[in-house]
């Protein structure tokens, strides 16, 4: 997210000041990301209010097993990244690097499971097009949100994986030190993506049952 500045950069005099600025800046960006997803949740909520029966029927066709596995995977990846971030604060780059590797692996696993789920959904003709399987017309709107929200979340996941691989690259070069700001930025971003998934999971997978 921000420049991999192990050292101090231009306008700041002290490292702690620079770290506060970075955390504050990342949080501002996370606030805007929350607003972005909030718009989609609002659309989902309004349509759930207008078409309760169609959304309930559509909600039953979403694969709960894949969703639950993915949520567990993502929460575990948050655990490993949180440990990595706290390890780097105590200047334990070894432990931190392992944590980042685990998070990267779990994140990739999440996308793979997501891919499997997408393939299964396509086989069941759940793409709201000509061959849409469900009878209720408003079910198409549910799946319109399902595909859009999970796809946008997957894009954010991919960005997160990019940031994590950058951390790994930094660790390889031995620049993963306590004063490195980008660890903080990456962990905050990753945790937000996890929070958003928890809400997406609740809305799309659970509420419809």
């Amino acid at each position, binding site marked *: 997210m*921000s420049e991999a500045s192990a050292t101090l*950069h*231009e*306008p700041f005099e002290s490292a702690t000041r620079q770290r506060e600025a970075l955390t*504050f800046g990342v949080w501002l960006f996370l*606030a805007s990301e929350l*607003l972005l997803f909030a718009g989609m949740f*609002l*659309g989902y909520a309004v349509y759930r209010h207008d078409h309760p029966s169609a959304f309930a029927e559509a909600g039953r066709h979403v694969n709960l097993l894949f969703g639950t596995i993915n949520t567990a995977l993502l929460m575990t990846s948050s655990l490993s990244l949180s440990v990595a971030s706290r390890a780097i604060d105590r200047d334990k780059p070894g432990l931190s690097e392992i944590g980042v590797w685990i998070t990267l692996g779990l994140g990739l696993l999440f996308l793979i499971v997501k891919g499997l789920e997408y393939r299964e959904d396509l086989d069941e003709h759940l793409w709201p097009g000509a061959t849409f399987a469900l009878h209720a*017309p408003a079910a198409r709107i549910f799946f319109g949100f399902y595909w859009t929200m999970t796809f946008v979340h997957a894009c954010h996941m991919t960005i997160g994986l990019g940031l994590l691989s950058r951390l790994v690259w930094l660790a390889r070069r031995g620049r993963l030190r306590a004063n490195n700001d980008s660890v903080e930025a990456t962990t905050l971003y990753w945790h937000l993506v996890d929070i958003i998934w928890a809400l997406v999971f609740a809305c799309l997978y659970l509420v419809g049952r």
Partner: protein
Amino acid sequence: MSLTTTPGEFPTADPDAKGARPADGAPMQQSFWTDGGQTVWSWLGTVDHKRIAILYAISITAFFFLGGAAAALIRIHLFTPHGLLFSRDTYNKLFTLHGVIMVWFFLVPSIPSTLGNFLLPLMIGARDMAFPKINLLSWYVFVGGALLTVIALLAGGVDTGWTFYPPFSTIYSNSAVTLAAVGVFVVGFSSILTGINFIATIHLLRAPGMKWFRLPLFVWAMYATSMVMILATPVLSTSLLLIIAERLFGMPIFDARIGGDPLLFQHLFWFYSHPAVYIMILPAMGVISEIVTVAARRKVFGYAFMVYAMIAIAVVGFMVWGHHMFVSGMSPYAALVFSFLSFVVAVPSAIKVFNWTATLYRGQITFAAPMMYALGFLGLFTIGGLTGLMLASVPIDVHVTDTYFVVAHFHYIMVGASVSAFFGGLHYWWPKITGRLYPEGWARFAAILMFFGFNFTFFPQFIMGYLGMPRRYAEYPAEFQLYHVMSSTGAMVLAVAYLLPLFYFAYSLRFGEVAPANPWNATGLEWTVPSPPPKHNFDQIPHVENDPYEYHAQGHAPEHGKSIHRGQGDGPVRTPPT
């Protein structure tokens, strides 16, 4: 060099004064123009907030004239009831181009990205923005989004209007809506990144002693605008994302045939687009506060109220978007709620107008070009604001929404107020940015021409609007022709008035007199550094002890005393910081 510098009055070229004008071809003195290097990469790869401001200034000027050309063509087309130049489809694409370019590529970035980027660190005593690289990234994202959108607008053309209302934009329009939506989606991130940069800078990089209530009102305006940018723009991205999902991937989000609700898009779109008009007007308010205090040599009247008013506008501005949808099929009870909140949001704006007027009381007022723009702003913003009150009341809005009355209202605010303030700010800080003085005579002529050209263009539209002339009509019934002819003639005058600064500003770059560090004898840290400022802004970060507008002792009006002739003169009461 001897200059007759009179406070607030622009230094008039003293006939007997020796060559204040630089010898032709003389190298510009050391400043950020030269320090960072002269290669193309030194400009395109710069992280100096001043250079990024210049990059923004050049790009938004280009978009201003692109959008302005579209406006001129629209007005020429509307000289006759059946349209002079274009087919109806071309006309639709033209007004969409005018709307999209002017809103997202000129008005939203105009003051924050140019004057804000340049002046914010200078005004709070910082060497640069909190995140210099992200500042440059925001410009590249802006240019990237702009490229995509301009290709969409010029190559295929978009005929949905800048509002992209479904189901027309998603199902029935076969123009380049998807590409334009992607372009505007990308440019949205540019203003989010700018907002993040500003808020972090104001919070963390203020000079020692620069407490919150010692910040100049322009900085407060940037703070309020950035709040709105960060919290509103993402919802625009969501609405455009859903349009793209529906058009590109067939996700039937707004398809009414299967139970979708086009009003949902309007809610999401206007949740951004009304705060967006506050993104456009709040920076203008900041500029006007700076200009009026300098020209009147007076502390701003009720500094605390001005700050609270700006924060109130930014916050309450998020609760009023429903007044764009009174006739759209929204529930009449919700319409009443939004109507009430729209009346509430008008109160801070009224307070600010009264405070600016009260700032003139017992001042030493001079009328250089920036002050003329500021006075123009006061009048036009009041008219725009009061017609906004009319539009906030449901029965009148039912009659005049989607007519030329509402077109006139928002042009009074956006062009009359926000663009006038932008030009005022440009003139006021031109010496600081370029180190050159602009020709005062031409500048005043352009300001007056712009004021009359503007009124002559948009006042007839109020009358035409109440008569019932709907907006976005390529052809109109004959009984409106007189008003259209008046408006179009006014538009030609306005176009000329907008071109004038282009010439005399360019002229001043080459032949303008060299500007002293503080030509207006203004307070404010940006005037304590040389014009144009060096790359690192301050040799030594200043320590601030005074309130922002120290033009006279507390509670005592500025005595006229002697007019300042040679050199700096007594200037502001406080001693400039070490």
